[in-house]
């Protein structure tokens, strides 16, 4: 059997009812038709091609898919795309400045070797940025508690914690 070649990589089941949503992602407005069951993480990855937001589990445990919804960190696997209708989303692709300058949190992760394989990193950066908005002067303990919803298997968290503290100090 020969594949017809027309289908594209979508996690939506084709043919179901669609809902129109309007979202602003990294400052750009998008209007899209999505399945009601489409998760926000699949929307940004599959519909918008923003693959920096990663998927690491299926139980909302790992935090790899963390992005900002109206400036607050959310695990995008726990939000439906339709719930983001009318809202403002920032993904890891929207963190660096237009001139290529890294966001201070990205810069802090780089300077403190806060990443190794980099798979948890986008979620970690988004969670850490949100953490500092809530608590601009965290202790080491605050950072560890604040990031406990984001798992990393490479760094042992030591340098992630240093990164966040360094970003806070700046």
């Amino acid at each position, binding site marked *: 059997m020969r*594949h017809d070649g027309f289908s594209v990589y979508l996690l939506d089941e084709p043919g179901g009812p669609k809902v129109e949503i309007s979202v602003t992602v990294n400052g750009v407005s998008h209007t899209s038709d999505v399945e009601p069951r489409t998760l926000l993480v699949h929307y940004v990855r599959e519909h918008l091609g923003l693959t920096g937001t*990663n998927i690491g589990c299926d139980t909302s445990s790992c935090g790899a898919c963390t992005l900002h919804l109206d400036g607050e960190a959310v695990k995008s696997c726990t939000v439906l795309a339709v719930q983001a209708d009318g809202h403002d989303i920032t993904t890891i692709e929207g963190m660096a400045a237009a001139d290529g300058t890294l966001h201070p949190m990205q810069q802090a992760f780089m300077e403190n070797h806060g990443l190794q394989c980099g798979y948890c990193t986008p979620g970690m950066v988004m969670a850490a940025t949100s953490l500092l908005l809530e608590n601009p002067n965290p202790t080491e303990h605050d950072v560890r508690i604040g990031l*406990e919803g984001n798992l990393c298997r490479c760094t042992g968290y030591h*340098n992630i914690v240093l990164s966040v503290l360094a970003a806070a100090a700046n």
Partner: protein
Amino acid sequence: MTVTQEPTRVIGQRLLRREDPALLTGEAKFTNDLPVTGALHLAVLRSPYAHARITSVDVSGALAVPGVRAAYSGADLSDQWGGPMPCAWPVTDDMKNPAHYPLATSKACYAGDGVACVLADSAIAARDALEAITVQYEPLEPVLDLEDALSDRVVIHDDLGTNTSYTWNLLVEDHDGAVDEAFAAAAHTVSERYIQQRLIPMAMEPRAVLAMPQPFGGDMTLYSTTQIPHILKVMVALTLGIPEHQMRVIAPSVGGGFGSKLNVYAEELLCVALARKHGVPVRWNEDRSENAMATIHGRGQVQRIELAADADGKLTAIRVRLIGDMGAYLQLVTPGIPLLGAFLYAGVYDLPKAYDFSCTSVFTTMTPTDAYRGAGRPEATFAIERAMDSLAAKIGVDPLELRRRNFIAVEKYPYEAYSGLVYDSGNHDGAATKAAEMLGYDELRARQGTQNANGSNKRLGIGVTSYFEMCGLAPSRVLASLNYSAGGWEAATVRVLPTSKVQVVTGSAPHGQGHETAWSMIVADKMGISPDDVDVLHSDTAIAPLGLDTYGSRSLPVGGVAIAMACDKVIDKAKQIAAHQLEASADDLEYAGGEFSVRGSPDKTMPLAAIAFEAFTAHNLPDGLEPNLEAQVTYDPPNFSWPFGTHMCAVEVDTETGQVDVLKYVAVDDCGVQVNPLIVDGQVHGGVVQGIGQALFEEAVYDTDGNLKTSTLAEYLVPAASDVPPIATGHTVTPSPTNQLGVKGIGEAGTIGAASTIINAVVDALSGLGVHDVPMPASPHNVWTAINAARANASGNNTIANNNNIGGSQ
């Protein structure tokens, strides 16, 4: 060979990683991120039974699901395989190895074993269609306990007639009977049994595969999140009958491996076979539950270790008996994992030739095991370091003092061990002394005496581990003696481009280790140029055709050294060009700071940039010299590398709740010369936390039917930031004399040192209560149970004490 005398400028600096900007911004592409239109999505139906005969498979229901293009049983695809899935390490000539195919046909041997598959236009359609496949099973008894497996009460692979895969022995005796004599004559002996629980590697990126066929051109490209693109290419070609020269494997950004991506997996073979069959791209993305079930597990051993010692506590003999849990099948290097530890049960200690190791490995109806960070060496280190604490307790000496009495003395290096292996360099007392200072060992011991004597419910414990890591796999001839099917060399190419920028091609494929940064630093120092002028190419068999990939802490001591050697060859060739152009004898030329100069004539110089352009134009080269400036080296190391160190920690154990708090963790690791100390520390941090994970949190738990209960990250406790302490790292530097950089590996050291450090501390905290051992993971429940069992034992009551006794009198 001596360490290079050249002054280094870049090696040793904490250079920030060039890999980071792409990873920090979402620019880096993992396999699942690759945009491909027209791909079919694979989904695999997995056995819900741990052990069952498959009596029929009906996929017709799946074909009716919208979007489904094909569905297959194992039998439907039997014509696709040129042979069974590969096991590259037949450790004994009579090792039993059951035929293992990407989909099972007659029997499912673990919960998660693939039995059928679907191809559909979308991943969700493929997944939905699995539910429309009907499989008739005849359930059989699971085999979950290693000693039960050994009994052959239930035989898993009928044609083998036994669950025992192999028995492998390493008996080294000065004379026949030396081990028995030493035990008979010993002033002190200990005999301990430890369980190395099964662990799930849980790399943050689950596996992902994309096979791209070229139906008319004939080539096949496999993208996979793998540690081993080169080995995978050979194995896929052999297993599927694809001519190797038409097979290309690319590992894009890889989100961690820890050994779990050092394999040839069913889904990789399925994607390639089905892409070939259908002539379209086929992709598969593993979800986390599949990752827990269908990606290899680590550890899984029952260990019996016996130590014999003289009156001073000096070791006189060691006897080890292992049962290794292979799981349902042998994956790529499954049977070899216990052997990687077989040479390390004497740790860093000066043992006479009286060593008796034997491992019997068995099949069980659980996920296959294979390499997980450290692979055999954490298990060995755990056993000897736990047993040393038992010996210290028996003799009544401080655990650190007992270790000092047994350390191989620094002046004995290079040291030929009882096994015949030569340990390259070491200074165990130096590392232990530094760790003790960093921890505040003496002060903590004093505080412990006070704190634990006053009946506090928060008992203080101190743990010590001194370890050796046998890594840098490996001298090919040694691997041959262990029946390993491949070599242990690594390849490197260094190429100076016409504009004098340098390309390095490495066969060691990284997955988070920072090879691009570290390799550029080696080249910068060797060639006297900026690391910014060096690019590092890797992880694509069309770009880097030769290599043996990344595992076993081999990248730097094998692959990095190969790069340094290739730089030497490039400089040698450049020198011939410079000599020709400067009309000087090559013997009179010196190379430093990126240029050649003529000794005694400092004004006669030629920079590398000019030589590179001359090599490119080839207008004026010495007679017979080929144009261009590049060199390839394949380096087979003369020895393993032997990093070592001492880890120490202080823990507080709450005797009412069983909670263990790690107050302080100190890791002193000696990996020889450090190319990038920033990266070294990062490797240690992560390794230690994985060891702490084994000690305190992690365990693959099966129910009595053989179902994996810890199949998600909600149940399998990968440590979170709030679970672990900061890791204080310290280093001593004892260069390896076996390579020109003086380097050793560091990837696994943290994990090798950590688990016994933690458990020694927990037991140390509780020894005053009569606790002799605590099983891993030392969860609150396990600790609490151990405390209560000891109390019941102390009060002459053999049953577990009831809750009223918690926190009672000490």
